[in-house]
């Protein structure tokens, strides 16, 4: 499709107590605009990915809120899809350019979580599930723990294999200056961390984070060689609660969104060298690698444990070079946009120490809730 990501920027992710959402947004949007080699008045619309501003910050009307604070006053929209809000906002921005209505638009993913008490943040995040799940006392880790147990029961997946996802992603995060966690983990450390929802330990879980990321989407990039082409942008949804799904060893929405994306892009899973996938919990990355068609069902955990997706030694492809949600942090509305930023950096060959050699195709995979929404993007560099 004739759509490009021309500019990208992200803030560091973490506990950013001295920075407001407005400052985060101003920082990334202005840097993304400069990166695209354009001016602020070239931006024709703003798409904001955010989940919790209403429940935590008592601020809604985010389209106008940010277009005003950015000094743009353009058509502006908040797009919400739980932890997939950022990916969904990018999807809507891409459609708006494809429609011909706009030539150049901005996607801003932003979330401020650490200003609030952890129990308030957990309660707000539980808004992504169903009433029945909330009344059962389920937490987000618990829903993924339910999925993890099925996977372990059916395929013999081990807690050590789950832990190896966190170990790999912290290793990648240690090379990312914007990551929340730069400390290395070991499988033992993960298994010794406190139990949150059996079999998931604390270090199987992504953190609560602040952060913002922005990308500029355009049909007419000013620096074609610098711009990364969007080959596919697809969305799928599934039941809000996991109980009503016919199968609990997969996220069906991921499978459907991926299938559509590969068809749009005209490529196969094996063609992709670098992926940012939604590892909100370690089991989620294992499910993602299978549902995206990278590995057969039941085979991903072993491949990850053997280092086949880790940026050192003998890898087949690299997954979550940014550190993923686990290592880089997970400001929910920003995550889907940050994934695009990372893949663009990889395809431009500007990812520094995290650079995956010779990557031509990259994929992002963003999930809302326990899999009720999935967004997949496929990007490509035209550089030879």
């Amino acid at each position, binding site marked *: 499709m004739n759509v490009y990501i021309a500019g990208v920027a992200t803030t560091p992710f973490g506990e950013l107590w001295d920075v407001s959402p407005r400052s985060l947004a101003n920082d990334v949007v202005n840097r993304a605009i400069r990166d695209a080699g354009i001016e602020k008045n070239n931006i024709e619309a703003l798409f904001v990915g955010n989940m919790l501003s209403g429940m935590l910050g008592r601020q809604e009307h985010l389209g106008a809120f940010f277009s005003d604070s950015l000094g743009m006053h353009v058509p502006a929209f908040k797009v919400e899809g739980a932890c997939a809000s950022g990916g969904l906002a990018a999807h809507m921005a891409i459609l708006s350019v494809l429609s011909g209505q706009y030539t150049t638009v901005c996607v801003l993913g932003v979330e401020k979580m650490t200003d609030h008490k952890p129990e308030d943040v957990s309660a707000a995040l539980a808004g992504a599930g169903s009433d029945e*799940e909330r009344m059962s006392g389920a937490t987000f880790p618990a829903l993924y723990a339910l999925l993890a147990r099925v996977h372990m029961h059916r395929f013999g997946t081990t807690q050590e294999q789950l832990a190896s996802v966190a170990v790999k992603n912290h290793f990648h995060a240690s090379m990312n200056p914007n990551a929340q966690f730069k400390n290395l983990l070991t499988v033992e450390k993960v298994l010794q961390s*406190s139990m949150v929802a059996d079999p998931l330990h604390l270090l199987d879980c992504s953190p609560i984070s602040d952060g913002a990321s922005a990308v500029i989407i355009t049909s007419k990039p000013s620096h074609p060689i610098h711009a990364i082409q969007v080959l596919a942008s697809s969305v799928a949804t599934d039941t809000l609660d996991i109980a009503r799904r016919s199968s609990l060893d997969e996220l069906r929405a991921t499978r459907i969104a991926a299938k559509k994306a590969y068809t749009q892009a005209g490529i196969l899973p094996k063609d992709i060298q670098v992926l940012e996938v939604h590892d909100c919990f370690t089991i989620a990355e294992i499910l993602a690698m299978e549902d995206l068609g990278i590995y057969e069902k039941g085979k991903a955990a072993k491949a990850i444990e053997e280092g086949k997706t880790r940026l050192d030694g003998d890898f087949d492809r690299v997954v979550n070079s940014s550190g993923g949600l686990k290592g880089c942090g997970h400001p929910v509305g920003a995550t889907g946009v940050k994934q695009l930023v990372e893949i663009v950096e990889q395809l431009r060959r500007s990812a520094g120490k995290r650079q995956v050699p010779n990557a031509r195709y990259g994929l992002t995979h963003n999930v809302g809730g326990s899999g009720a929404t999935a967004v997949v993007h496929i990007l490509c560099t035209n550089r030879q």
Partner: protein
Amino acid sequence: MHQSPVKVWRNQKRIRRLLGQEGAIVTWTMIHVPPQGFSSFAPYPIAVVALDNGETITAQVVDHNETTLRIGQRVVVVLRRVMEPSSDGVIPYGVKVKPL
């Protein structure tokens, strides 16, 4: 957490439909870090249960022991207080499941 009394009342239709239904545990987890309103129950297990009537539900498991907390365990739906009462005094009753 605030519980709308209207929602608690409306939910009673679902409770009546489910009470006494039997089924089997599809998957379960033990929650060690509970959400607001559930601290006094923790740690507690929840399960996805496939009921014999074709419905599947997520519910807390009560009166369990090490041998009854497993995939495939038969359970029955019972009425219980599901969370701590909110400040407006509404006691939220709902369904949990008990091993048979």
